[in-house]
Each structure stands twice: as C-alpha cells, then as structure tokens.
C-alpha cells in the first residue's frame, strides 16, 4: 500500500486528519480507563503486604511511564523539527509538553500519597524521586522557554535543543533504582523477566496505561490543532476548510 506520508507533514492536510483521529483516541481512552478502574477496584485482590493502598499504583505506574515515554516522543518530534526544519514536527513537540508535565506531576503526587502510608513520608530526596522532579522542571522549562520567544521558528529551535539535552535524564530516571541505593523499589515489570504480581493487577495496570496513552494522543492532537490554527491564521485554507470558519 503506497501512502504518501509526507502529505501529512503539511498543517493543511494534517489538521483534518487529526480531527478525525481525536474522537477515536478519546473513545479508546474512556473505554480502557473505565475497564481499568473496574479491574483495579473490583477484580484485583488486596495486596498481602500493602493492603488497599497499593491500588494507587494503578495510576502511579502508568503516569510515571507516560511521563518518560511522552518526553521521548516530544524530544523526537523536536529533533525532527530541528533537522528538517518542519513546523508541524515542532508543533507536535509543543503540543505534547503540557500533557507530559501533567503526567509527571500525577506520578509525583500519587507517589507521595502512596509513600506516606507505606514509607512514612511523602517525600525523600532519593535518586528516583529527584530525577522525576527534574523531569517536571524540564517540561516546565520547555514550555516557558517556548512561550518567552516571540518568533515561532526561534522558539521551536531553542525548545528543540532543550528537549534534546534533557533527554539524558530519561535513562537516569529509568535505571536510577539500579544505579543508586534508592528507597524507591526496583521495577516490578521489565522486559527481562516475568512480572512479579497477580495477573489481575497487571491487567489493571496495562488497561490504565492504554487509557493514558490514548488520552495523551487525543489531547495532543486537540492542542496541535489549536497551534495550527494560530500559526496559520494568515493562510487562506483555514477559512476555506475549517468548520465554523467557512
């Protein structure tokens, strides 16, 4: 099948495509989210060590995964924008940053609320928690830097460089529990070995991960459509094709 992918690298053809994808992504997000909550609260058994408090993990772990994964995707788009000087790539990076920051905050927030009853403290300066906090600052720095530069091309370039440099933090977060002696426990799920938890717990975790993933796609596309409308306000195509403007 020959699809001309470069066709969709122009904002004019990507805008309607993104519009068609949003309802599907949102529907997948809501369905898997509801299923994940159901399995997480009514099917998964009580943890023999942590009691009910471990149910926080059903948002903590997927949010933490999303915070790192979204950063990688954001950096890839930003670097693609740097290399090929494509506006839409940089706009995708810009569109992902607030959602990535939100999931980073949620990972820290839910981690603190799990840590209090489990560790006896909301926060410790251990390597995992500190590097995740740095990730939040990287997202906020990226957003603030782009917002502070008026010229969109220069803003995209500066943001792209920041995203690229900050990428070094992602493996540090991921392997921090191995490299340093952290209070945060090691990974319960990895590619190297079978997961060490009940199948129902794993199912809830994966359903919520899928939900967050679909949600991120949906809101990033909503935001990139706003970015396109704002940057293309001089172009005639938006007045000819965008519903509500014709």
């Amino acid at each position, binding site marked *: 099948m020959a699809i001309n992918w470069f066709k969709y690298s122009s904002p004019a053809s990507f805008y309607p495509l993104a519009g068609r994808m949003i309802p599907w992504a949102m529907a997948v997000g809501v369905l898997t989210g509801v299923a994940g909550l159901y399995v997480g609260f009514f099917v998964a058994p009580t943890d023999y060590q942590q009691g009910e408090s471990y*149910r926080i993990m059903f*948002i*903590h772990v997927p949010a933490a995964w999303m915070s790192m994964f979204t950063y990688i995707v954001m950096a890839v788009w930003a670097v693609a924008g740097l290399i090929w000087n494509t506006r839409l790539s940089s706009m995708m990076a810009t569109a992902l940053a607030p959602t990535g920051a939100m999931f980073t905050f949620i990972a820290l927030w839910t981690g603190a609320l799990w840590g*209090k009853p489990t560790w006896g403290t909301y926060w410790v300066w251990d390597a995992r928690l500190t590097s995740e906090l740095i990730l939040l600052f990287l997202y906020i720095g990226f957003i603030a830097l782009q917002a502070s530069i008026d010229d969109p091309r220069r803003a995209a370039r500066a943001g792209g460089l920041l995203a690229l440099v900050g990428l070094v933090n992602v493996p540090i977060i991921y392997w921090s529990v191995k490299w340093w002696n952290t209070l945060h426990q090691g990974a319960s799920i990895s590619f190297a070995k079978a997961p060490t938890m009940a199948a129902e717990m794993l199912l809830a975790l994966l359903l919520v991960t899928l939900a967050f993933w679909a949600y991120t796609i949906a809101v990033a596309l909503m*935001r990139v459509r706003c970015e396109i409308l704002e940057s293309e306000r001089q172009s005639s195509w938006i007045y000819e094709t965008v519903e509500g403007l014709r």
Partner: protein
Amino acid sequence: MAEFFAMGGYGFFIWMSYSVTALFMVTEVLLLMRRRRTILQRLSRIRKAKIGVGHEAQT
C-alpha cells in the same frame, strides 16, 4: 459501600490520588475545548473585519 470508600483505612490517600488525576485530565480537555472556541471566534472576527474593509473599498 462505606467500607469500599474507607479502603481499609487508606481511603484518604487513594481518593486524593484518583480525584486529583481525574480533575487534571478533565480540566485539560475542557481548557483545550475553550482554547479552540476562543481561537475560532477570533479568526472569524478577523475574517468578517477583512470582508467589511473590502466592501468599503469598493463603494
């Protein structure tokens, strides 16, 4: 029901986690819908203003 919400004594921590997450996700979608509406309104105002100027120039 009350037992479910108590979550074996962890209710506060669990519901603070879930409610803040839900609040953030719903708010983000609502803010984006409002942003889109605002942009479309502004663009259609610009467009109407341009058409208006064009008519005046012709008469």
